[in-house]
């Protein structure tokens, strides 16, 4: 199956997948006591419901028509006592089913999350975040619903129908057979309806998300829309969508409105048959008046279990499709795993050697071809070159986020695939181009580098990285919240924090992907200082965008098309007047041009671009 199709949402297989259903039920095994509890409770409740109708019949026949006051009182007492019992079981089934539902969701999310943490990068490359999000958020709810409330409803419905039929047979078997014959018709009609309704609702859901998308785009791009005078055309297009939405949801709504009346009318014929057949038998005593009443109640009530069965059946397909996707996530295997004989050398200090390394993400598009590079312990390497040339790949390989497709990478003379993953990851520090922070306080974020660091160590790391100054300016200092993903901080501040985080981790190999977006001069200088602090004495790789960084590196490696195009010190490379020379002069111009603004910006004005930005 191609990826495009794999990630299509709302596509449902129509065939019934028994294997997935069985596996789903298997998820309930650890909680079998709960399941047994709610199943028993609902069976009791369901039987009692049928029995109450039977008691009502006896009130009429034995108490009222039989003119027997004692019988009346005794039946009503029985009614009351049973009701108290029923109330207890109602409590039990709501509590057990509902709580179990949440528990099953909890379990599923837990399993999936743990699995996600172990999966390799290649999985994340293949799988859109949105897809994973849906598996983790909406699918567990849908599945848990089927496994708990769905199972409950089916049990209730089947029990209800069975017990009702039992009492009907007790009252009058001929009429009971008539009722039993209408049941399949009822069920067939109900299922037919429910499926159609579900299809319509799916359509409306799809349209609804299209409407939201269009609305969103039009609001985000409203300034362009206005500048281009596109309002009328946009409204006409939007009206197509809302028109479709109207037709589709109206259809869905009236189909659902038709459903219960349809079932009602069919059962009305059964009621008619009972009135006729039962009524005629009353004078002979084969049927009692209370019996007729009971039959009418049973039949009228019959539409609820029928509708529940149809509903569960119809929604089951959707839940099973959800389950298939959830299981596909749970079954995904990490591509990079520790070997059984993995050996932790205890340190990553030592030379790093790329030996004839080939790498590709997609076999059709090789990224690195026979790549060789020897990095000495403590060296700072600047990786330079166009986007897509392979710089990030080299860094990802060093971190063993990916492994070479062929060739090997040696750290301190040992092939790093023979080391446990944790031994590598725990000794590498990394600062990303777009720094990623987690919601929480500044302190939490720095401590991410080493969880057992004391407050003092956190602050020392911040000072070393040059982040202390801006942090202490906040009202709450280190306790300041950074917001979701760090939205409350500027890019420069985020970078300083991620530097501090890396400093605290005290890694043996340091990797930095410099930000391309400009930060103000002061922050820039602080970042430079911070980088210097952390790089001294450590093997470092920098995907460099700033001249000052590049110039400071021990060695500059110019990467183009998966190979080393030029390599050497700044001076050596300039002298070659090759690729690096061009890159450098271009970069040089751009960096100085950027200083225009500083001349013009004698007094910074609160940004106008905030509102003008389109």
């Amino acid at each position, binding site marked *: 199956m191609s990826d495009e199709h794999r990630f299509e949402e709302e596509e449902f297989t129509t065939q019934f997948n028994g294997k997935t259903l069985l596996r789903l039920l298997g998820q309930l095994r650890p909680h079998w006591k709960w399941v047994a509890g709610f199943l028993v409770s609902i069976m009791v409740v369901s039987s009692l419901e049928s029995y109450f109708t039977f008691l009502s019949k006896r009130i009429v026949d034995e108490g009222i028509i039989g003119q027997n006051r004692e019988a009346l009182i005794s039946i009503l007492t029985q009614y009351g006592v049973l009701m108290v019992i029923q109330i207890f079981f109602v409590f039990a089934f709501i509590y057990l089913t509902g*709580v179990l539902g949440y528990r099953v969701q909890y379990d599923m999310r837990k399993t999936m999350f743990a699995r996600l943490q172990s999966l390799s990068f290649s999985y994340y490359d293949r799988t859109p975040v949105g897809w994973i999000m849906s598996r983790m958020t909406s699918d567990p709810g849908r599945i848990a619903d089927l496994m708990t409330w769905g199972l409950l409803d089916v049990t209730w419905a089947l029990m209800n129908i069975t017990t009702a039929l039992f009492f009907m047979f007790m009252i009058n078997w001929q009429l009971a057979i008539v009722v039993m014959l209408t049941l399949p018709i009822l069920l067939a009609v109900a299922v037919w309806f429910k499926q159609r309704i579900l299809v319509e609702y799916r359509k409306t859901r799809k349209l609804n998300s299209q409407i939201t998308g269009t*609305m969103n785009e039009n609001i985000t*791009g409203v*300034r362009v829309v206005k500048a281009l*005078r596109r309002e009328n055309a946009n409204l006409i297009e*939007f009206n197509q969508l809302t028109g479709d939405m*109207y037709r589709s949801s109206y259809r869905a709504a009236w189909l659902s409105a038709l459903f219960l009346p349809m079932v009602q009318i069919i059962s009305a014929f059964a009621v008619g048959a009972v009135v006729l057949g039962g009524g005629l038998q009353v004078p002979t005593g084969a049927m009692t008046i209370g019996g007729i009443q009971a039959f009418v109640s049973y039949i009228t009530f019959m539409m609820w279990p029928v509708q529940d069965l149809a509903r569960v059946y119809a929604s089951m397909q959707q839940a099973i499709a959800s389950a298939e996707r959830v299981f596909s996530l749970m079954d995904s295997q990490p591509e990079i795993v520790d070997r059984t004989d993995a050996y932790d050398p205890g340190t990553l200090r030592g030379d790093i050697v790329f030996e004839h390394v080939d790498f590709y993400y997609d076999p059709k598009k090789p990224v690195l071809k026979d790549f060789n590079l020897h990095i000495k312990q403590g060296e700072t390497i600047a990786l330079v070159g166009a986007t897509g040339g392979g710089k990030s790949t080299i860094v990802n390989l060093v971190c063993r986020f990916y492994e070479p497709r062929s060739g090997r990478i040696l750290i301190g003379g040992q092939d790093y695939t023979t080391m446990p993953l944790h031994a590598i990851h725990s000794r590498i520090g990394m600062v990303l181009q777009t720094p990623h922070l987690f919601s929480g306080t500044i302190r939490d974020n720095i401590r991410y580098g080493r969880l057992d660091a004391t407050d003092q160590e956190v602050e020392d790391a911040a000072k070393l990285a040059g982040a202390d100054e801006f942090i202490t300016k906040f009202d709450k200092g280190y306790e300041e919240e950074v917001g979701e993903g760090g939205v409350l901080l500027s890019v420069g501040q985020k970078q300083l924090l991620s530097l501090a985080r890396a400093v605290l981790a005290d890694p043996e190999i340091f990797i930095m992907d410099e930000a391309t977006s400009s930060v103000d001069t002061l922050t820039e200088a602080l970042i430079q200082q911070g980088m210097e602090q952390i790089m001294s004495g450590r093997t470092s790789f920098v995907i460099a965008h700033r001249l000052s960084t590049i110039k400071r590196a021990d060695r500059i490696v110019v990467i183009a098309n998966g190979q080393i195009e030029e390599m050497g010190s700044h001076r050596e490379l300039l*002298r070659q007047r090759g690729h690096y020379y061009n890159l450098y002069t271009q970069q040089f111009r751009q960096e*100085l041009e950027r200083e225009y603004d500083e001349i*013009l910006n004698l007094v910074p004005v609160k940004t106008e671009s905030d509102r003008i930005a389109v």
Partner: protein
Amino acid sequence: MPTTTLTAPQGVQQPDYDLKKDVTKNRLLGLWRLMYGYRWIYIWATLALGIAALAKSGTLLLLRYFVDNILLQPNTIFLHALPNTILPTDQPVLAGFFSETLPITTPPLQVFVLIALGFVFLAGAEGWFTFLSGRAAARTSEGIAYRLRNYLFDHIQRLSFSYHDKNQTGDLLQRSTSDVDAVRQFFAEQGVGVGRIVLLFLINFAAIAAIHWQLALFSSLVVPLVVGVSLWFFQRVSQRYEAVQNQEAILSSRLQENLTGVRVVKAFARQAYETKRFEKENWHYYELGRDELVMHSFYWPITDAITGVQLIGGYLIAALMVLDGALTVGDYMAYAGMLVYVIFPMRNLGRIIVQMSTGLVSYDRVAEVIREDREPLEENSAPPVADLKGEVVFDHVSFEYDPNLPVLKNVSFTVKAGQVIALMGATGSGKTTITNLLNRFYEYKQGSIRLDGIELNQYPRDFLRRNIGVVQQEPFLFSRSIRENITYSVGRDVTEAEVEAAAKAAAIHQVILSFPEGYNTLVGERGVTLSGGQKQRVTLARTLLKNPRILILDDATSSVDTETEAAIRSALKQLMPGRTTFIIAHRIQTVMNADLIIVFDQGTIAQMGTHDQLLRDPDGIYARIYDMQSRIDEELEKELSLE
């Protein structure tokens, strides 16, 4: 105010109804007014429910008649009182022939058939009217939602820039989607839902009262209690429910953060830590869900108990009344059936009323947007000139977005038709404001701006925007094909050649061809991701195709490399003759050939003139920028000579 005639789906009432004049602070009144064109349909939806409820009671009354007047007719014999051997039990109609001691008459078969048909008919009527009601309610709610969606969509795109400056996209989006849906649900479910419960109660109550009024009063004793408990419960449970929803949102964002930060998580080997953090939120979600469930698991049994007491009490009293001769057997049976509808539906009243309040709040949020004034686009009817020449005069113009934060201070300059004007200056110095004023995206209040000698605010906005093309600093493309993006603003059929010519002028044609699907390539999430420079060039092509009389390039080539920029510049030169062109730029090369260069500094004009004129003032900003440019070359030389 309908600006465009739309084809509405069949069955929609008053699709172009102007909702604005009807918004009000009184929510219920506002919702009533929203129903314009649907009021009778909705009233019918409620009436039909009443008819259905009547039919339901009718069934029970028919049962009563059947029992009292047919089955228990005093002269109908109960044959089982006789020895069974005498008669074939399946032929009761023949009973009369076999009895000699009692004057027995059994009702003819037709009566039974008629009664049976009566049951079928009443059930049919109940079902049919329930359906009709549901359909009418759906028509109303969907129709209202359709009208609201279209109205809001159009309304929002016609609100001014200043409105959008002040309001967040997410908030507007929520108002025009989920709030509209809450209003829709108000009509679809809650309005008729309350109607149904109330009608069921009233009709069944009345029917019981018709049988025996004291009994009716007795039977509704617990109704106030049930309603009270229900309201109390659902208010609380909705708070719990909200807590669950909030926690779900927290869970999602934790997850999102983890997934987007997967590199960091892996780089620091923090999988275990992350799992623990997620686990905490996941468990909390479970706990909150459990708390909500606990409430439910108490509510339903407790109301079961309350209604159960009423039920048994009712049965007992009514049965005793039969024994005392105050009621007939049929009365009892009808009563037993109706009693259920008097008390049980009340348990859900609280839920519906609590949900209604969401609908009311959503109405407020929607009304707030509708209340805003649209930007009049076609005001000042006739465009003063058929063909715009493009002479622009700023005469002592001052402007501020926020009071006391002036952006332009007393700015005056003149641009002749067909000239190229370069605007330079730092971010926030007022360059972009000039172009925003020209399009009348904002209204100037001090000074005068004249276009071809006529005061700018005499022109309809529509006319200005059709004749002025802006390539904005941060390009915005729509998620459709590249071709559709380029032709986005032309309201006519465009030939392939025209599209390509525009793309070529913007130096993007070759790039587009390099995509597998060429001009049909989708942009955005579902298609290719374009670089900043590529996006800028597509927007440039889009504006060129519009063929405006006045062209504004707002830092339009800032993300484009120098060579491509040169190519664009020479292409533009051919396209520019006759058009007045404003260029906002940072690079000297981009601006030096302009007919007039204006350097802004904090809202005032610091320098104005041609390249040569400006260089004559060595202390001027322009000269300093120019010097810096030469310095770059010098410094580079120096650096290289160190070798």
